[in-house]
């Protein structure tokens, strides 16, 4: 029986490899964007406007994925755009996770007034329409990377808080936290040493999911021009610009869309894969 389980543990699976591989490639692209990009992502050349990608006959050599209506290189803009996307994903995702999971854990394990306060806060939060709420927040804070991150954290912490609270409650109702307390543990140490490791697989899965969502939120905000300054390339901004010329130059909108899609998918698949590996029963 022991051996059967450890077999399961060793198999990482194509899901984990593929999603991890794509995200690693993307991270490298973001870090080395200035070396990898064949062109300046902001350089305009109106004579080279709407050049198709490399396999089409009329393609301009050196512009692999074509150019947009202002003659800017689509590949270079996607590479630079991954900087914003990944920064937002990592920072906003992590902050959201820290705040939401902490509140959820405290509420779910300690119960009492902490739970009352956190639960009511979640109820109130959930009543706001998230997209409108974020647009409103950015309007108040002013556009910019930090504003986007703040908006995502403020909107999405409830996702963690709700799930982690429920999970912590379920764990708290079992016998082992009580046994730990009889053995002299304080409530706080019980929460951190006994409860937290059992909630961790869920938190990890949520965290990567949240990173994917952060990428989408950033793209949505860029799409409505509320992200960072319009100069910096973002995937959402590219999609928004490409939308105008979709009949003449489909590649301007399609390539950033594919990148966005693969990235969000990879984050969620990575989460599922990691969850299995963190789960003590499956591990």
């Amino acid at each position, binding site marked *: 029986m022991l051996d059967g389980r450890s077999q399961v543990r060793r198999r990482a699976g194509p899901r984990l490899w593929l999603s991890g591989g794509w995200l690693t490639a993307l991270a490298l692209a973001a870090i080395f964007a200035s070396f990898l990009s064949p062109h300046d992502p902001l350089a305009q050349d109106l004579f080279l406007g709407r050049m198709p990608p490399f396999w089409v006959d009329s393609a301009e050599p050196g512009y692999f994925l074509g150019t947009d209506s202002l003659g800017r290189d689509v590949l270079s803009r996607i590479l630079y755009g991954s900087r914003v996307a990944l920064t937002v994903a990592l920072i906003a995702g992590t902050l959201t996770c820290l705040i939401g999971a902490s509140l959820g854990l405290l509420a779910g394990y300690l119960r009492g007034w902490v739970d009352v306060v956190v639960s009511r806060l979640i109820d109130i939060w959930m009543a706001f329409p998230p997209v409108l709420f974020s647009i409103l927040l950015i309007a108040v804070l002013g556009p910019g990377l930090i504003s986007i991150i703040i908006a995502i954290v403020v909107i999405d912490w409830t996702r963690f808080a709700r799930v982690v609270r429920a999970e912590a409650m379920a764990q708290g109702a079992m*016998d082992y936290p009580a046994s730990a307390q009889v053995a002299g543990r304080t409530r706080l140490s019980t929460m951190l040493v006994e409860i937290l490791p059992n909630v961790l697989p869920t938190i990890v899965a949520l965290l990567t999911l949240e990173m994917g969502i952060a990428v989408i939120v950033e793209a949505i905000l860029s799409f409505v021009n509320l992200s960072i300054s319009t100069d910096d390339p973002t995937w959402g901004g590219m999609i928004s610009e490409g939308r105008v010329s979709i009949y003449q130059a489909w590649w301007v909108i399609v390539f950033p869309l594919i990148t966005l899609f693969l990235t969000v998918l990879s984050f969620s698949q990575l989460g599922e894969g990691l969850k299995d590996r963190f789960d003590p029963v499956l591990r």
Partner: protein
Amino acid sequence: MSFLSISNLSVRIAGTTTRLLRDVALSVSPGEVHGLVGESGAGKSMIGKAVLGILPRSVEIISGQIELDGTDLLTLPPAEHRRRIGQSCALIPQDPMTALNPSRRIGPQITDRLVDILGWNRAKARERAVELLHEVHIPDPDRILRSYPHELSGGMRQRILIASAFAAEPKLIIADEPTTALDVTVQKQILKLIKEMQERHNTALLFVTHDLGVVSKICQSLSVLYGGLVVEATDVHGFFRAPSHAYSRALLAATPKYTDPEASLTPVPDAVITEVNAQVDAVDREWRGG
């Protein structure tokens, strides 16, 4: 001199006047096994939880003393309460499936207490853990200490919980229906094991159960609980020969007879329930009046 002595203990649902324990008194001496019997909801487990300080937040202690070795636990600050409990008491919980942390290996779960409370080093604690697993008849302790709980069967886990309870040589162990979640063949072994360990370590044992058969095998004295009220407290021989309270008699009559499997089950008669309910009400009236 008894090691645990509870007197006048009342517990209610927080913020209401509904009492869940009604002036409970009982005591357990070193080496004694005291049974706590009653139907579900009678408050058996509640007494154990009150002693160990792990009552749910929804209930509160409103009066009484819980004296452990002469000190009233209820007057102690929480940290001191926790320290005392950790040093001298242990719990054998009901459900071995949820009583071990699924994400930690067995080893540290047994040795934690030795390291945290007795201040032993890890190596010494681990040696002791191996010794204990031998004591509860677990083969290959080294492998078990490295295992996760889900890799072990229910009976195995209950053995581990028993070993863990006896680890720090507690003076008092509270066993909260330790055999209820196990199948019948394993129940018998576990019961025997608890008795064996209790006798070897001369521990005071408060044994919560709804099974009078178990009481007759393992306990010296018992308290019968109904609606949070101790309706009868006596020694086991007296109880099984001639229970004095009508409810006790009815409870005893309701036990299925092994010798007569064809006999239909006898429920506790309505008249007895009415009588004992009236007694509970009378106690409550007196309490409100006083």
